[in-house]
Every structure is written in C-alpha cells, then in structure tokens.
C-alpha cells in the first residue's frame, strides 16, 4: 500500500490510517486535528456542506504546508487528508496528524497546519442552510487576504 501523506479524497475518512502514517519508534507524541461539519455557525443552522477542490494544486499546497512544518519543527512527521464532496453534520472534512518525540512541537505544528490550510489550499465550501445556500469565502469569517494575496510562503508565521 502506498503511503500518501497529503491527500484530497472523496470518501469518508478516519483517523486511524493517518496516525499510522506518522507513527514511528522515535515518536512519543502524536496530535490529531479532526475538522467536522458543525451544525450551527454564526447562529445559522447548516443542513449539509459541499466541498470543492482544485485537486492537483490542493495536494501540492498540502505538501508545501508539510514542507514548511518540517523546516520549522524538524522533529515532526505530518500527514493531512481533506475530503471533498457532500458532507453531513458531524462528517469529518479534514484530519491532520503530527508525530514528534516530544509533545510541544506536535501541538504547534498541528495548529500551524490548520491555519495554513485555511490560507493557501484551494478548497471551497458551499453551505446549505434551511433558507438558502452559498459558497463561503474566508472573508465571511476573516479578512480576505489581508496583504492582498495569500501568505504564500508562510512568512507571517515565524
């Protein structure tokens, strides 16, 4: 079985395979982040979600995030899988697994990964509410590209 560390997939995902990808004898700590479809956002009830990706570039950007992480935290191993397509409430959209000999880098690198995914990975979600639907840009939750463009190199995060 090939061990693809950075993946966009269309089927349901579970945490076990990602843990296996980063597990090793040198590891003492593994952190995982599991992003699920939340029912209520900003007071609105979500019925379901649709994720769309520019798949080849999205996988490339996930890999770039992995490279940024191993440069910043050389002791870590990282694996990321993002699901696309229709998802229901509580379905898993993304899993990030990081292993490290000690716990601190495993937490820091994991949180860095999710922040960067929300900045540079070409994936979009369309929310279906009771009374409508819309493609969500991060501008609804944050400032869109505060520097006029995505922080491509991750320089803000040193």
């Amino acid at each position, binding site marked *: 079985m090939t061990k693809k560390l950075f993946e966009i997939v269309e089927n349901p995902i579970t945490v076990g395979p990602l843990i296996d990808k980063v597990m090793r004898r040198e590891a003492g700590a593994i952190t995982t982040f599991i992003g699920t479809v939340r029912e209520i956002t900003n007071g609105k009830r979500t019925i379901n979600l649709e994720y769309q990706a520019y798949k080849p570039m999205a996988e490339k950007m996930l890999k770039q995030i992995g490279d940024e992480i191993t440069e910043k935290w050389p002791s870590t191993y990282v694996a990321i899988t993002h699901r696309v397509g229709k998802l229901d409430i509580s379905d898993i959209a993304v899993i990030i697994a990081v292993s490290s000999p000690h716990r601190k880098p495993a937490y820091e690198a994991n949180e860095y990964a999710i922040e960067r995914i929300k900045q540079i990975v070409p994936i979009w979600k369309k929310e279906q509410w009771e009374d409508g639907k819309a493609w969500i840009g*991060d501008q609804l939750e944050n400032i869109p590209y505060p520097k006029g463009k995505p922080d491509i190199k991750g320089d803000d995060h040193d």
Partner: protein
Amino acid sequence: MIEVLLFAQLQEDAGTDRLTLNIEKLSVKQLRKKLMETYNLQQVKESMVAVNEVYALDKEWIQSGDTVAIIPPVSGG
C-alpha cells in the same frame, strides 16, 4: 490557447468550470481585466490567480499552453 479553470461561486457565475482563451500571451493583470470585462466575473477582483498550479502575481506572464486557475478566497479546513 490558454485554459482558465473556475471554481466555487465563479464557476456558478460563469455557468462553466473552464474557459478556453484563444490568446498567445497576456499578463495576469490583463487576464483579470478580461475576465471582469468580457465575462463579467466580478469575484476575480478578490481572487488569486494560479498559473500551472502555482500562485502568480499580477505582473507575471501567461502563455499559450498554460493552465490558469482563478482561486476565490478559500474556505477549506
């Protein structure tokens, strides 16, 4: 020929997931202008442009054979 991929709201606005431009060469900035004026895709303004899967700045050039993607603000995770 330059292929332009569209996603999310832009895809719905254009009614297609790709445009094929019969152009030899233009800058990213010129492409933005064309998409806004000829195709009325206003969200291009707040989008990034990727050329062959790499984010590109306005001054960079696109040539026949390149694959361009218009990337509206992302919302993965």
